[in-house]
C-alpha cells in the first residue's frame, strides 16, 4: 500500500527533474535568440520520461503512461503545423527532429535525447531559434512543472494523512 504511494512520488519526482531539464534547455534557446549560428534544442519529454522511469508499454507501477505514447502522432503533426507547444509531449513532435546520437545528458536520469528544431522561417545568420515557439514551450513547461509539483504535494499530503490516521 505504502509502496504504491511511494511509487507515485517516485514517478512524479522523475517527471519534475525532466521538466526542470527542459526548462533549462528552453531558457538556453531564449538566451541565444540573437546568436549567429546557434541551433535550437529541445527535450522530447515523453520519451525522456519513458527512459527515466524504465516504463515500457505495460506500465509497471501505479501509473500507466498514456501521454508518452504516440497516439496518432502523424495526424497531430499534420494538423498542428506549428509543432512544439501545447500537448506536443505526445510521441510525434511536429517541429523537431529527434537526434538520438546527440542525446544522453551526462549524469542525467537516462538517455534524454535532445532534438534539433526544424526552422519554420530560416534566418540568414543560421540561427534556428523560433522565439514565439520557445516562449510558448517555456510557458507550457512552467505550467506542467507546477502541475507536477501539485501532484507531489498531493501525494505527500495523502501519505501524511494516512500516517496520522486522522
Amino acid at each position, binding site marked *: 500500500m505504502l509502496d504504491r504511494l511511494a511509487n507515485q512520488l517516485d514517478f512524479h519526482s522523475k517527471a*519534475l*527533474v525532466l521538466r*526542470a*531539464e527542459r*526548462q*533549462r*534547455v528552453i*531558457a*538556453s534557446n*531564449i*538566451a*541565444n*535568440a*540573437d*546568436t*549567429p*549560428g*546557434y541551433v535550437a*534544442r529541445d*527535450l522530447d519529454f515523453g520519451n525522456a520520461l519513458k527512459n527515466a522511469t524504465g516504463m515500457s508499454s505495460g506500465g509497471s507501477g501505479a501509473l500507466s503512461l498514456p501521454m508518452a505514447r504516440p497516439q496518432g502522432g502523424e495526424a497531430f503533426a499534420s494538423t498542428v503545423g506549428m509543432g512544439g507547444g501545447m500537448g506536443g509531449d505526445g510521441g510525434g513532435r511536429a517541429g523537431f527532429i529527434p537526434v538520438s546520437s*546527440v*542525446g*544522453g*545528458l*551526462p*549524469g*542525467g536520469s537516462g538517455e534524454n535525447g*535532445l532534438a534539433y528544431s526544424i526552422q519554420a522561417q530560416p534566418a540568414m545568420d543560421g540561427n534556428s531559434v523560433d*522565439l514565439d515557439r520557445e*516562449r510558448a514551450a*517555456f*510557458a507550457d513547461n*512552467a505550467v506542467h*512543472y*507546477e502541475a507536477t*509539483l501539485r501532484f*507531489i*504535494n498531493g501525494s*505527500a499530503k495523502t501519505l501524511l494523512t494516512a500516517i496520522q490516521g486522522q
Partner: protein
Amino acid sequence: MSMFSIFNVSGSAVSAQSQRLNAVASNLANVEAVAGPDGKAFKARQVVFQTVPMGDAGTAGVRVSQVLESQAEGRRVMDPTNPAADAQGYVTHSNVNAVEEMVNMISASRAYQNNVEVMNTAKTLLLKTLQMGQ
C-alpha cells in the same frame, strides 16, 4: 540543481544584451559627431554574440565575443564653415545609421525582457519547489 543554471544562462544573455544596448546608445549619441577621440569620424560599433556551453548538453549561455567597428564610409556633408572641413569644404560625419540603430535597440530590449521573464518564471518555480510538502 539544473534549474539554478537557468539564472546563469539568462544572466549571461541579459549581460550580453545590455552590452549591445550600450553599443547602440554610444552609436546613437555619436550619430551627428564629426570627429571621434582619434580626430577621425566616429565609426559605429557592433557587438558579436557567441554561444558559451555551460555544463550539461543543451545548456548554452551567450557572451559578446568581439566589438566590431563598422568600416562603412562616413556621411560627407558640404559645410566649408565647419572647422573640421577638409580642403574641398566637406565634413565627414560618423557612419552610424540611426534607423539601423533604433531597430537594433528595439531588438535588444525585447531580448532583454524575454530573458528577465525567463528568470522570473524560474524563480517562481524554484520558490514553489521550496514549499514542496508544506
